[in-house]
């Protein structure tokens, strides 16, 4: 049995799964239920400036019969009284001392507000602080949330205020609503933030109601830009995570990965690209706390299969394999192969290749089943057919190197090798 326990700057949790700062972590009743279910830790829903929320608050993108591929929200930070939150945080720590309790913060944009808030939160016995520099709606108009995260210098200033008083680890949460998360990440680390978490939600409009013509979510006939999360944002989050893991400044601090994590596989991928812990929200909003069982068991079984005794054995392991395009090996060449015994003759590979790729699949008519074969000299090894094929391992990509040696683009150009040979 693999050891899933996690040590994040001394914040210990029995597994790497934390609930992200969001509705599932906004009060004692939820958090105790989460801990009972087995969650490793929580990031308590953001405390700070007093707010009031609207109704409705969420909208979603469904895809091909599946609900909530992506979730959008226009909810603000906690709208409960600060004292009540602090009291409940203290109680949750008392009842579950082995779980991570990190508190998300977003104070009014001045030194005093931040520092007073931090003192109150530290009094609860919380193990860490997460600075919410990411919330993309509502708070930004007031100079908070993403308005801080989008400007590295403002972020640096706020982190400096925080570090003047913080005595427990500080994690800065980054907004993805920037061309790169690295500048703000660097500013936070340079200002003393001991860790980073990413990503917060992505600004979005999930859709427009085709009967009322009003975008979702509808608040009395109007809508507003919301924050998008859930499985749809995972690839974007992984990319941003990798840039943090590869930057010489930000790579020095641990990262808590966030963005569409729904399964143990997602978690393993985030950890392979540098996350020490992972945070989950949308999957729980859709299915409840009970998903923690498979999140842990699946990860543990995979680690056993791969021979990883503890999570640190593989955290960041895939980071060096993401490289610049120009460093890729141009002699590496693969071609598709269709297993006729597995083919169900759906023709999806054919029409994808014919209409959208390199016309590399031969159709031999049959009634009712056509036969499809690869025209190997035409195949560029793009993977499209394999991605489209509904049958596992029916289409495989077979390596047919163009040359023995590693040959990157720079070398290719220097040698004056021929272009456009296909």
């Amino acid at each position, binding site marked *: 049995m693999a050891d899933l326990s996690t040590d994040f700057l001394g914040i210990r949790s029995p597994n790497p799964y934390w609930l992200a700062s969001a509705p599932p972590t906004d009060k004692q009743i939820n958090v105790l239920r989460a801990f009972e279910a087995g969650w490793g830790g929580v990031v308590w829903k953001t405390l700070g400036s007093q707010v009031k929320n609207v109704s409705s608050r969420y909208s979603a993108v469904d895809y*091909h*019969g599946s609900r909530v591929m992506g979730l959008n929200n226009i909810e603000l930070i906690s709208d409960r009284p600060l004292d009540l939150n602090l009291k409940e945080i203290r109680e949750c720590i008392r009842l579950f001392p082995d779980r991570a309790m990190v508190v998300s913060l977003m104070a009014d944009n001045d030194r005093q507000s931040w520092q007073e808030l931090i003192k109150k939160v530290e009094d609860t016995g919380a193990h860490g602080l997460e600075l919410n520099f990411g919330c993309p709606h509502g708070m930004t108009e007031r100079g908070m949330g993403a308005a801080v995260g989008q400007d590295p210098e403002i972020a640096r200033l706020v982190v400096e205020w925080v570090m003047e008083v913080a005595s427990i680890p500080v994690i800065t949460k980054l907004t993805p609503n920037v061309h790169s998360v690295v500048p703000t990440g660097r500013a936070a680390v340079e200002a003393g933030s001991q860790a980073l978490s990413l990503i917060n939600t992505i600004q979005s409009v999930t859709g427009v109601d085709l009967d009322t013509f009003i975008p979702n979510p509808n608040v009395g006939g109007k809508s507003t830009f919301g924050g998008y999360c859930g499985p749809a944002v995972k690839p974007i989050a992984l990319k941003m995570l990798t840039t943090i893991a590869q930057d010489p400044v930000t790579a020095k601090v641990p990262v808590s990965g966030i963005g569409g994590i729904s399964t143990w596989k997602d978690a393993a991928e985030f950890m392979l690209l540098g996350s020490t812990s992972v945070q989950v929200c949308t999957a729980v909003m859709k299915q409840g706390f009970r998903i923690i069982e498979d999140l842990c068991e699946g990860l543990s079984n995979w680690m056993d299969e791969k021979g990883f005794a503890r999570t640190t054995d593989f955290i960041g392991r895939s980071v060096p394999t993401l490289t610049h395009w120009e460093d890729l090996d141009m002699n590496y060449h693969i071609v598709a192969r269709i297993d006729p015994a597995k083919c*169900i*003759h*759906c023709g999806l590979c054919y029409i994808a290749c014919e209409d959208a790729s390199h016309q590399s699949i031969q159709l031999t008519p049959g*009634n009712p089943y*056509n036969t499809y074969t690869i025209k190997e000299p035409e195949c560029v090894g793009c993977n499209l057919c394999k991605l489209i094929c509904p*049958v596992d391992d029916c289409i495989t990509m077979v390596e047919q190197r163009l040359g023995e040696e590693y040959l990157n683009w720079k070398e290719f150009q220097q040698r004056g090798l021929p272009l456009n040979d296909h």
Partner: protein
Amino acid sequence: MAILPHRLTDPEYAQNFSDIHPPFETRNAALIDANRCLFCYDAPCTKSCPTGIDVPKFIQQIATDNLKGSAHTILSSNIMGAGCSRVCPVEKLCEGACVYNLMEEEPIPIARLQRWSTEKAIADRWPIFQRAASTGKKVAVVGAGPSGLSLAHVLARSGVDVTIYEKETKGGGLMTYGIAAYKVTPEFCEDELNYILSIGGITIRYEQELGRDIRLDELQQQYDAVFLAFGVGLARRLDIPGEDLAGMVDALRFIYDIRANGYPSVPVGDKVAVIGMGMTAIDAATQARRLGAAEVTLVYRRTQEEMPCTTAELDIALLDGCRILWLTAPTAALGENGRLTQLLCSRMRLGDPDNSGRRAPIDTGETVTLQVDMVIKAAGQVPFAGLVAGSGLAQDKGRIVVGPGGGVGATDGSTDRSGVFAGGDCVNGGKEVVDAVQAGKDAAAAILNYLGVTKK
């Protein structure tokens, strides 16, 4: 033992004849299956449909909430797409070809999805087709069955006025009169017919029979072209002693009575034998059971290997408690006081293949005697030989001979007389509704070409 009507109560009839393949109840239910469709290219399901319905397209249109588009996709290939979704032997057509079968998975329920779109079109009278401006051309059709209606709709869309002469009091042909009532109800057949006619330009004259009320040469004089689609006649005779005893009935007549007169009024025996193993034999046997027959035995001279019905149909009969006697052929009907009491049969074995390519049954000399009070004959149907002979058209054993069409197995419906076309069962000897619809489409194209009218 006796042949009696009114064997059951009304609730029992209602239960026995309720929809055997119930429709989806909700959009969600339809979407689960619609979204499972892989959207195959050059799809095997489409290629296995005699009318070539673009199945992946209409299913994707259900998934995108474009139900009108979905109905249009179906009905533009098959105007009786709603009826076909209930009566087609899909397990040997579209659903049988679904690629999921090759993954050992359940195929997409294509018929049920097709019913989802087309029933809404009919119920809400979606005006999917527009009639082109009148061309002034007039075509007469004999028979308001699937091929006649399919042809009429294509012609009406293209601005040709169509008059259909129908010998019965209702349209729809065998869809209305010849198929088990648990597959299509009379109300449904009427709704579908009215929907087809709603395009305008099609008039049906009922109780007009060729050779009795109308004559081919008169129609030729009054119209620019004539399409013969009068179907096939009653069951093939068994040619055994005792065939005229009371209790020997014709399967199509039996089904016709159920469809035309209602369940309670149709007499059925206690112990019934059904001769044959085609779709009509199954429809007769299952309905005999559902009308209250105590014992129904299907008698077939070959084996399951050669049976014309599908396995799904056989399963309906077995689930209804019908007994099957394979390799058994009737040799004589015996009676008392003119009433059937026994059916004598021979046990058969299979010999070498015959003209049909199937192994021929050979009498073993061993006999079986069935105690029966009713025998339903469903060993194939015979053409209206007299009618065809009277028309003077070229024929082959009572089937009208037509010219070859473009596709495999297709015809252009043209007879050896200019301006006279034919299609459906009176040409092919008796096939599925969906085949008749395609024959109507093929002949319509030929007639438009003959009339010099552009197809719309």
